[in-house]
């Protein structure tokens, strides 16, 4: 009985003696982990802490203390480090919106795609009277306003381009038919002179369904523009088109 009492007393006194030590051990582990350039292993921590400290216990306690805070103690690759709490990760990223203007070439190409869709690259080039660089089409695809529709059912099976719903949204058009015709353009002062009776705008279609002369894109068309670029290789003089802004 007496022995058990003695044991209990000893346990209590050890607890009392240990308390400040444990608090200090927590402080040391905290500082070491904070200042470390890389996550620390239990062994590394042990080697740098006062002897006789149960590092695992200290880490467990520290982890608990930080669990609900803005910074958590986490284990990565078996080593320990402080990291921003996951739900606050958004604090570590900032979105910077960078306004960018479409180049004149891109704007013209976009306009032709909008009015003449579905339209092939060759047709765009015919209207513009100048070769269309790959960069211009890439840029337009990047804006999300232009998409690859399908392939025209003619020799060479060229890709057809069209606009997206995002295009209508960006330019505030209810439907693609809301694009003004030539007479309207003239009325609005965009065009000058007499419009000959033969000259008119085709009816554009941005319908999801393909036209009769369009085939669906192949499923393996992961990099459609590479094929396009190959095709466009020889006969055109790219130097004449400036897409500087992109």
């Amino acid at each position, binding site marked *: 009985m007496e022995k058990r009492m003695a044991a209990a007393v000893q346990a209590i006194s050890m607890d009392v003696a240990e308390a400040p030590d444990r608090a200090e051990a927590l402080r040391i582990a905290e500082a070491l982990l904070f*200042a470390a350039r890389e996550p620390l292993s239990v062994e590394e921590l042990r080697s740098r802490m006062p002897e006789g400290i149960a590092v695992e216990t200290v880490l467990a306690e520290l982890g608990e203390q930080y669990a609900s805070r803005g910074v958590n103690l986490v284990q990565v690759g078996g080593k320990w480090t402080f990291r921003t709490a996951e739900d606050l990760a958004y*604090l570590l990223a900032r979105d910077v919106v960078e*306004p960018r203007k479409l180049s004149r070439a891109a704007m013209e190409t976009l*306009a032709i795609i909008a009015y003449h869709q579905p339209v092939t690259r060759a047709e765009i080039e015919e209207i513009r009277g100048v070769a269309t660089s790959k960069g211009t089409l890439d840029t337009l695809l990047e804006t999300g306003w232009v998409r690859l529709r399908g392939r025209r059912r003619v020799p060479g099976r060229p890709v057809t381009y069209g606009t997206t719903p995002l295009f209508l949204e960006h330019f505030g058009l209810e439907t693609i038919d809301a694009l003004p015709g030539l007479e309207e*353009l003239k009325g609005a002062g965009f065009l*000058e002179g007499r419009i000959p009776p033969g000259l008119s705008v085709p009816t554009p279609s941005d319908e999801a369904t393909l036209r009769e002369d369009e085939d669906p894109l192949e499923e393996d068309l992961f990099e459609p523009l590479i094929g396009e670029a190959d095709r466009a290789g020889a006969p055109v003089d790219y130097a004449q088109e400036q897409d500087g802004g992109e």
Partner: protein
Amino acid sequence: MAAQLPFEDVALAERAEGDPTLHVDVDGFEGPLDLLLELARRQKVDLHRISILALAEQYLAFIEEARRLRLELAADYLVMAAWLAYLKSRLLLPDPPKGDQPSAADLATALAFRLRRLEAIREAAKRLAERPQLGRDVFARGAPEPVEIRKQLRWEATLYDLLSAYARQRQKQLNTRIVMPKRHVWSLVEAREALERLVGLAQDWTVLDSYLTRYMAEPEQRPTVLASALSATLELVKEGKLAVRQERAFAPIWVKSEISRTSDMAEA
């Protein structure tokens, strides 16, 4: 003075506490003021109550010793020695009647002030150096988590841009289609037919223009009618059907049927 020795090592050793005779080691001092401060400290009194006279004497003795050992002394040590010698003499002699010069006591006070100030700033430097320094005593986060800047492109284009871009290209096509307005030309054939009728009528000299008036209802027709008529006239003259007369340049052109004349002649 070719010293390459850092201050701390040599100077402290040379100026060990209780050393009665000061080693002549100018290298250890950072200039005459530093030397003076060290000498002042040796008076073991508060710098406020220091004897500038005693200090000057010690400094001069130090310099004397250095010269005896033929040590090369920097000029500013000698300048200071000269100044202290002057100060010493001023301190020993009664002040001259009030002049422009500051009194010897003022000069001594100013020197004492400089020494106290140097000591104070040295103490401040020491306390500054003792502060917990970043990277030596305290540490920042070893692995900061940098803020990631995500760039988002926002393409800017207005409907106006779109429409003007389209119109620009259609305009090009409009411009390349040249539509010539149909011009009315009075052909040579027409002119000749008209003039052949005249042959029958112009029995006497007639002004060509007045005959052609009916064909020039519209003013823009005038050039073509005149040109063709003239050509046809000359042709008919060549064929002997008409006679032409003009009195001077730009004067009206007169025409007359040659047929009637020949018939006249025949009659005659």
